[in-house]
């Protein structure tokens, strides 16, 4: 078994705000992240796949194709977007890094050809804050 990681990045606006709560409660729980007019981040996405090496190529999987899949199903939908307003697959979800990592997993997983398996989606919201999701 070998693990292969591709790093991509996107820039997006978001806010943390639960519409079921009033403004005061949102500010108590989410602080300045609840700012009505949004704020934003440079997100960095690490996608790790796992599997066995194909003898003919020496590859687990062609990393160029992995990059194209991440770009088509994730980056193009998130980059320079407002995560709360512009992204169909995040509709009605809280735009936390945790939920975003799980949503990225769901976007990518169906497009990876067997026997390659998705191992981890690691998502940095800032250089100091990141989330890892392993699919369970």
């Amino acid at each position, binding site marked *: 078994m070998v693990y292969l990681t591709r790093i991509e*990045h996107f*820039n*997006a*606006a*978001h806010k943390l705000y639960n519409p079921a709560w009033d403004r005061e409660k949102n500010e108590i729980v989410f602080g*300045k*992240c609840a*700012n009505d*007019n*949004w*704020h*934003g*981040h*440079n997100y960095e996405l690490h996608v790790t796949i796992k599997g066995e090496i194909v003898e003919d190529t020496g590859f687990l999987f062609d990393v160029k194709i992995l990059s194209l899949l991440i770009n088509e199903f994730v980056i193009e939908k998130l*980059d*320079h*977007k*407002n995560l709360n*307003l*512009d992204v169909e697959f995040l509709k009605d979800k809280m735009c936390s890094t945790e939920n975003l990592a799980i949503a990225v997993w769901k976007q990518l997983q169906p497009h990876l050809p067997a026997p390659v398996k998705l191992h981890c989606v690691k998502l940095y919201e*800032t*250089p100091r804050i990141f989330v890892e999701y392993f699919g369970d």
Partner: protein
Amino acid sequence: MQSKKVSVYRREHFNAAHRLHNPAWDAEKNFDVFGKCSNPNFHGHNYEIEVRITGETDPETGFVINLKVLRDIIKETILEKLDHKNLNLDVPEFKDVNPTVENIVIFIFNALREKIDLKFELHVRVYETPRNFAEYPAS
């Protein structure tokens, strides 16, 4: 003679939303010029700022400037105004100024210049992404 001047640096960061948009142009021209940066619903960045102060060291302290004091000035003057804000909507200085990284670095320089003793040279660098940054004054 050997120069007595030393440069000291303080790095800070803030997270903000913005869009690049010229209100004098229609949406099509804005998209032609600014591309996806003109998205009406905004996007955002983790901005990093690097403030450089140059001067002679004080013989009593060994400091050019107390970096704790510099940090507090940056926090009060810049970060409280920009962090977790929408640069276009929440910051009056960008009401009629496009919040490009160039204009942001000039804004930060001017705001800090008012608070930092003129005996010090000031230089500011702003990173919009790890790959795009601007500095003022230009070198």
